[in-house]
């Protein structure tokens, strides 16, 4: 049965690629696939080998136990974190054509893709009996731990409006503990990180933990314990790692830096506008505040060093209605101005394509145009070039979910290296 997609007409992939001849067509494609989602044909599903490909994923925001591929990777190494959920736009279709797995759009082959390969630890079990894939999830070059799988901003209904963490947790809480076991984490890390060539980064994130002697102290304590447990398997004091957490104060940041091997820090501000921050992220606004969030990001640069601190935004959520910007031009200008304020103080901004998540307050909204996302990626990459900011900590092969840092692959912040 044909599905009617209720979206206004907008330029398609080919037109946008032609409009931006100096922007990687792979990155534009990735962005559009994330924006529109995918579905798999029977042939594409038959091409999945669960002994080789990653199909399972358990994290604080994603729960996946079907046999479809977890995600895709393009020929240039660009990862695509795909969504198979409902989408108001027609999805791309993954198919098999002439023996190759390809992305198609309306029957036309667009580009060859590969399914993500499964890390070896995925088939192993901890001493306590937990499948290791439920302790840590994987991306092509990154291992992910979500030590706390709920978010306390949702306890009082103050969670972020695009977020489905609470809905995901509540749907799966019979099988999903709020906290991961520390020994399970340490054991999984020891097994997983020993796979030669598999991982370039250890990644931690989870929901906010507001409790403690001082606001967020329990969250800081949790991450310190987890990082120390992971660090038991690793030699150097600092190892390639990233934490996305709530915006901690200087005392908390210093503890994190001094007591663990953590090498980079991210506190996602989600939307770069004070009024919209208050509307979209009411809990963060009430407990910490927009200006204080920014101030703490800048303070983190003094502790972790330039190039080791960034913030993430949910790209496009600034256009959510009825209180978002009235036009994409207005949203882009305001977002890049705020991102420049941060960049000038050593804080990089990266974005994720807003995947309008079922179960979120914003589930009936529509994400912006592909043109908007390309301009946002180009704009954020340009700011890093202007302020000589490295994005090694969050580049294409670590998170792989930021079109703007994908674009940063072809330049280096340090001049004069041949």
């Amino acid at each position, binding site marked *: 049965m044909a599905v009617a997609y209720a979206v206004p007409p907008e330029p398609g992939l080919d037109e946008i690629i032609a409009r931006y001849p100096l922007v*990687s*067509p792979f990155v534009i494609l990735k962005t559009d696939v994330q924006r529109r989602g995918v579905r798999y044909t029977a042939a594409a599903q038959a091409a999945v080998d669960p002994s080789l490909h990653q199909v399972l994923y358990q994290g604080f925001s994603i729960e996946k136990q079907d046999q479809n591929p977890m995600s895709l*990777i393009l020929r240039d*190494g660009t990862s695509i974190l795909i969504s198979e959920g409902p989408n108001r736009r027609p999805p791309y279709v993954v198919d098999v054509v002439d023996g190759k797995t390809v992305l198609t759009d309306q029957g036309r082959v667009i580009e060859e893709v590969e399914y993500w*390969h499964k890390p070896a630890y995925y088939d192993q079990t901890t001493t306590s009996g937990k499948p290791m894939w439920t302790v840590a999830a994987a991306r*092509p070059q990154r291992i992910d731990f979500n030590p706390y799988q709920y978010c306390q901003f949702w306890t009082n209904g103050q969670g972020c409006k695009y977020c489905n963490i609470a809905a995901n947790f509540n749907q799966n809480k019979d099988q999903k503990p709020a906290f991961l076991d520390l020994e399970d984490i340490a054991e999984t890390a020891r097994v997983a990180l020993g796979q*030669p*060539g*598999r991982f370039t980064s250890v990644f931690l994130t989870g929901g906010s933990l507001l409790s403690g002697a001082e606001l967020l102290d329990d969250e800081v304590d949790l991450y310190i314990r987890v990082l120390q447990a992971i660090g038991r398997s690793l030699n150097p004091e600092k190892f390639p790692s990233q934490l996305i957490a709530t915006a901690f104060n200087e005392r908390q940041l210093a503890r994190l830096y001094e007591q663990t091997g953590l090498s980079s820090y991210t506190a996602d501000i989600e939307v770069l506008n004070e009024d919209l921050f208050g509307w979209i992220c009411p809990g963060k606004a009430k407990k910490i505040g927009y200006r204080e969030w920014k101030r703490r990001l800048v303070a983190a640069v003094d502790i972790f060093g330039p190039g080791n601190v960034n913030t993430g935004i949910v790209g496009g959520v600034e256009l959510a209605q009825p209180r978002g910007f009235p036009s994409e031009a207005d949203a882009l200008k305001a977002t890049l101005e705020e991102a420049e304020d941060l960049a000038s103080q050593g804080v990089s901004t990266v974005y994720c394509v807003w995947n309008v998540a079922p179960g979120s307050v914003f589930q009936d909204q529509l994400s912006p145009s592909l043109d908007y996302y390309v301009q946002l990626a180009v704009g954020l990459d340009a700011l890093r070039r202007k302020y000589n900011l490295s994005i090694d900590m969050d580049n294409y092969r670590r998170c792989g979910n930021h079109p703007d840092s994908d674009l940063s692959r072809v*330049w280096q912040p340090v001049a004069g290296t041949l």
Partner: protein
Amino acid sequence: MASRLPPEILTLLEAPDTVKALGTVGPDGVPHVTYKGSLRADGAGNLVFAELIEASTTNRNLTWSIWFRKPVTITLLAADRRSFQIHGLPVKAHVSGPLFEKCYRDLRARLGDVDVSTVWVVEPTGWADETPAVRLAAAERDHPLLKHVDRFVKTSE
């Protein structure tokens, strides 16, 4: 369009004493040449090599090439001075997966404590024999006017 390499080039690619140079160009248009000892032909007729350094100019330029279908060149110089140039297009960057991990293990076994960024695959689009003797003979044959006249002066009555 893909070009199948002749057996002579495939043999040179396998020879341990062949010098293999990779020429790339990036967004700034500045040519960049490095030596790629790991460069080999794979079973599909493509050229495969490892780039160890993620942030190298070569890696950036190859990324630029695969994004915008910009050609690269590979020059081979054999111990006996035979030389070939191969033109090609980067078609695949393995940054993870079984092939990448095998290459990672092999290179570390051979080179010690090194990292590996990417296993690149280049599809040949053409090749030319650049051996000096061959090029000189071709120039004499095909461009008889492109010579200095003193070479025509009689040396004896």
